């Protein structure tokens, strides 16, 4: 294990940024989100939950995909990736255990056949440096999904305490990044890390959401859960906004739209939300007309449909962003507690 004094972190960022892009939690106008690092940016590794998850590093909120040039009756299709280096390597730094797991959830969608090459290009060229949590809060429930917040995976795992950042490479990519920055580090840290993990685990176990019961969310209960009368009450205050979807690290619905420019038509994709009324709107009608149906879709997808399609893996990682950010305080935990199983008080 390696360690670097906290006050030298800026040197570490600068060193990494010399050879590749570096994305990490940065405070801007009062809020912390993943941004590209440059000298002078206010880095905030201590922030437990960035507003947006790092998913937009692989799956940007808006992304140009292709361009069409039309002349008379003819169309030319241009892959916009031709005009820039799509395979530029970058480092994603400070990813929490829940957000790392969320990337695995996204991988199952975007890397499944047929592979989404926009996502794949970025994914393959990223080195992910995770950061263990030491001060989880009451909205955290990653443990419910088998995630250990004190020992996240990733190419490199780091831990942060009052004085040092501790560093451990886990993969070949991680080793190669370590080789680039090793001169800034000294050896040691095993004991401090172990002590921090032990303390944090005690807090994690005592959190109010530590023992949610998910046992009823099984594919064989799909119809029973779908028809549950409780959805009506659970969703009544839902505004139909996209906050939960857009702060969620695993939500991956997207829209594909065309934008006319003077130089041709740009076809881009952007995040979309199943909470929006026009999400499933067709020329001749809408399969989900009420907000209750849309609300139900979102949670059924995370807790039943996705696991049914992906060997039981849930598409919630317990990051608790929706718990903190829903304007009317509806969230997946309230759904789990209502429908998840007998052991939810």
């Amino acid at each position: 294990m390696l360690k670097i004094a906290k006050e030298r972190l800026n040197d570490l960022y600068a060193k990494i940024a010399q050879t590749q892009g570096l994305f990490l939690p940065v405070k801007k106008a009062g809020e912390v989100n993943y941004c590209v690092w440059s000298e002078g940016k206010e880095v905030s590794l201590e922030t437990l939950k960035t507003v947006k998850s790092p998913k937009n590093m692989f799956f940007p909120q808006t992304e140009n995909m292709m361009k069409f040039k039309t002349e008379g009756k003819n169309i030319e299709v241009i892959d916009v990736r031709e005009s820039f280096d799509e395979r530029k390597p970058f480092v994603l730094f400070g990813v929490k255990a829940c957000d790392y797991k969320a990337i695995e959830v996204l991988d199952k969608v975007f890397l499944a056949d047929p592979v989404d090459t926009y996502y794949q290009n970025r994914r393959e060229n990223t080195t992910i440096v995770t950061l263990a949590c030491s001060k989880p809060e009451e909205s955290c429930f990653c443990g419910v999904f088998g995630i250990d917040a004190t020992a996240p995976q990733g190419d490199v795992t780091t831990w942060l305490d009052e004085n040092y950042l501790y560093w451990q490479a886990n993969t070949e990519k991680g080793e190669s990044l370590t080789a680039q920055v090793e001169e800034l580090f000294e050896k040691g840290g095993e004991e401090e890390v172990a002590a921090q993990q032990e303390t944090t685990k005690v807090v994690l176990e005592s959190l109010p959401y530590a023992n949610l019961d998910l046992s009823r969310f099984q594919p064989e209960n799909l119809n029973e859960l779908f028809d549950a009368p409780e959805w009506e009450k659970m969703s009544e205050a839902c505004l139909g906004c996209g906050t939960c979807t857009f702060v969620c690290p695993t939500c991956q619905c997207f829209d594909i739209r065309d934008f006319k420019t003077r130089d041709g038509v740009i076809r881009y994709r952007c995040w979309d939300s199943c909470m929006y009324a026009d999400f499933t709107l067709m020329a001749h009608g809408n399969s989900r007309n009420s907000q209750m149906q849309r609300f139900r879709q979102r949670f059924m997808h995370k807790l039943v449909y996705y696991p049914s399609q992906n060997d039981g893996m849930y598409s919630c990682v317990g990051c608790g962003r929706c718990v903190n950010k829903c304007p009317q305080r509806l969230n997946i935990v309230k759904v789990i507690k209502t429908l998840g199983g007998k052991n939810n008080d």
Partner: protein
Amino acid sequence: MIEETLIPKVGVITDIRKDTPDVKTFRVVGTDGKKLFQHMPGQCAMVSVPGVGECMFSITSSPTNMDYMEFSIKKCGCVTEVLHAMEVGQQITVRGPYGKNFPVEEDFKGKDLLFIAGGIGLAPLRSVINYVRHYRNNYGKVVIVYGARSKDDLVDIEEIQTEWMNEPNTEVYLTIDRPQDGWDGHVGFVPAYVKELGLDPNMTAVLCGPPIMIKFTLAGLLELGFDKSRVYTTLELRMKCGVGKCDRCNVGDKFVCKDGPVFRMTELDELPDEY
């Protein structure tokens, strides 16, 4: 550059046929004059008009047609309206094929087949009917029941009358909703007609049309003794990617784009009622 499924191919419209007041059939080939890609009956393609949008349409032509693809498209939204205003020679974009096809090589082989369509619902069935006609010896008797609002709304009526009706071991029954001058055929709704015809319940049936027609026709077939596991239909929901990633065409844990659009009635029974 890696091949990306979301980036479409350019297709050229080589022929436009006006089937009904609001349905046109578009013949499409690649810019090299050849067919854009191979498909199986029931599969779909994403057709787009850059700047307007992209929509999923079933491929109407049979895979056995090696020269071109056809799409029968009803004018009902932004993209279809622009398509209807197009002229021959216009380029569009196409990507696919997407979705699961009718089990023509598996479950349908050797069986007597019943095709029931309403209105534009004939579009996906035309592909499978012509496929069956091409490999006629592989299949038993074929019965086609097709209905529309009026005689002018019957899609592909020329092909039906000149080709399908003359096919051996094939029965074609046409019906329109209300009596009309110049129509001496059957008048009445498809579900009622199906019951009147007293069809053999051992046939494998394929239903395609508006949801209300499917609902009542299915009920009629069950009354006649048809087995749900041998009744097929197709679903249609809003789609953007066509490959199970944009997450909007799901019914329960199935995607219409990937796991459909062809479903067995028994499969649909297991899914939530949200389509």
